[in-house]
């Protein structure tokens, strides 16, 4: 099984179509909808975590692209500034997915972008303000 988080952008022409339900019916994919918004210009933005076999995820994404929906891996939208981060580990106490974790026994703070859902909890907890999540509070940026 494969778990990955994607950002989907729906052009306004397709926002009334049952695209997500087709992912279940046709491609046997499970998913968690982490965020869903319709912007001013009627484009839709959705953050989706896919669970399913790699081949099915691939087919599902091909279907989305065919429908005009752009699909990008979430990872690109989260960034840790390694100059600012001094590896204290405060973020590991609030990260709900384990994307930020401590490596034992050396206590290095690891960041696995693939596990990050861009919830943004780490941003304000980080004493050095080293985490930048472009999705949080600014969905419009993603649609740009």
């Amino acid at each position, binding site marked *: 099984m494969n778990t990955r988080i994607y950002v989907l952008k729906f052009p306004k022409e397709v926002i009334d179509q049952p695209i997500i339900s087709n992912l279940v019916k046709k491609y046997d994919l499970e998913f968690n909808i982490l965020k869903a918004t319709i912007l001013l210009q009627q484009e839709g933005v959705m953050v989706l975590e896919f669970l399913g076999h790699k081949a099915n995820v691939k087919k599902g994404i091909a279907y989305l692209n065919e429908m005009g929906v752009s699909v990008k891996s979430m990872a690109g939208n989260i960034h840790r500034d390694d100059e600012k981060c*001094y590896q204290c580990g*405060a973020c590991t*106490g609030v990260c709900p997915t384990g994307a930020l974790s401590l490596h034992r026994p050396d*206590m290095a*703070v690891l960041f696995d972008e693939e596990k990050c859902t861009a919830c943004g909890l780490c941003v304000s*907890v980080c004493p*050095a*303000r080293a985490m930048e999540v472009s999705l949080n509070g600014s969905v419009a940026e993603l649609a740009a």
Partner: protein
Amino acid sequence: MGEFKVQKTYEEINAKIKAGQAVVVTAEEMVGIVKKHGPVDAARKVDVVTTGTFSPMCSSGAFINFGHSNPTIKALKVWMNNVPAYAGIAAVDVYIGATEPTEDDPLNKVFPGEFLYGGGHVLEDLVAGKKVLLKAVGYGTDCYPNKNVEKEVTLADLPYALLVNPRNCYQNYNCAINLSDRTVYCYMGTLKPQVRNATYCSAGELSPLLNDPYYKTIGLGTRIFLGGGIGYVTWQGSQHNPKALRSENGTTRRAAGTLMVQGDLKQMSSRWLKGVSMQGYGSSLAVGIGIPIPILNEEMAAYTGVSDAEIFTQIVDYSYDYSHGVARNYGEVSYAQLKSGQIEVNGKMVPTAPLSSVVRAREIAETLKGWITSGKFLLEKPIQTLPSE
């Protein structure tokens, strides 16, 4: 003083350092050495143990002289990047403190406040070589007629800049929990309601004062790694409390000793002085400190051999007890347990998160080890010891 099997003096250790023959290890490495060889043999083998800590340390700041302008000013109020600095010292001398918020900061008006910039950040910007906008207003005197000065300064422009931290390097600290039903935002970070997480802030076995629990070698005049440069211990810190509860190995089980430290800001770097923002609390400064401990005898070897499993702290509620002076705890835990990622509180497993960087603490101990083995950093015998038990 015939009580020890191994006896070395500062002079002997310094002679070995100068000759490039001193054996220097970090406090982490010393744990294994003492365990394997025992304190007497460890004291024969090892001359110096280096320690390190890197975490937010309030009670930090700098004395700055910003130089005379023409015409001259006697500053009444001074701001650096819009952060107020205390000017009631002399004409152009100020003290800028780490927790001072920006003049127009919204503070906690919308709770919890972000505190994105403050005195700690001004210090970081200075050591990073960035330009800082300095504004001063005066009331005008015959000798200092100017009433307004505004100029951009860099650390290199300043005639004098001395980091002076009245309380750093806490010997141990509380593990924080929140027993209430609402989230607590405090200097110990974000604490979830109903004890769903715990935070702690110590370098444990790498921490300076936990390796010299009775301050036998750390005192006035001790030369140290401070913010990437060389600094000195100049007094005990404020709130220094040597009478705190101790374990048999001498380490304190509560917040106890503290250090006042100072050093030339111009030697320091932004890698080791970092402005921090504690949500809902305020800004502060993360400070890197490393202290060398001379292994004068087997007693010092035993002290420096202490491991995370043998150092304990108390679990304190920050929703009510801490803020209302209730001397109560919810058990004691070792740093080995804290670093494992979970502890037991009231029969429930609770995830832990640190605020003190072990990675950076280790890097400081290694850096100091490098300075000493290369012969460029000698140990200084304290001219006066700190108040002990």
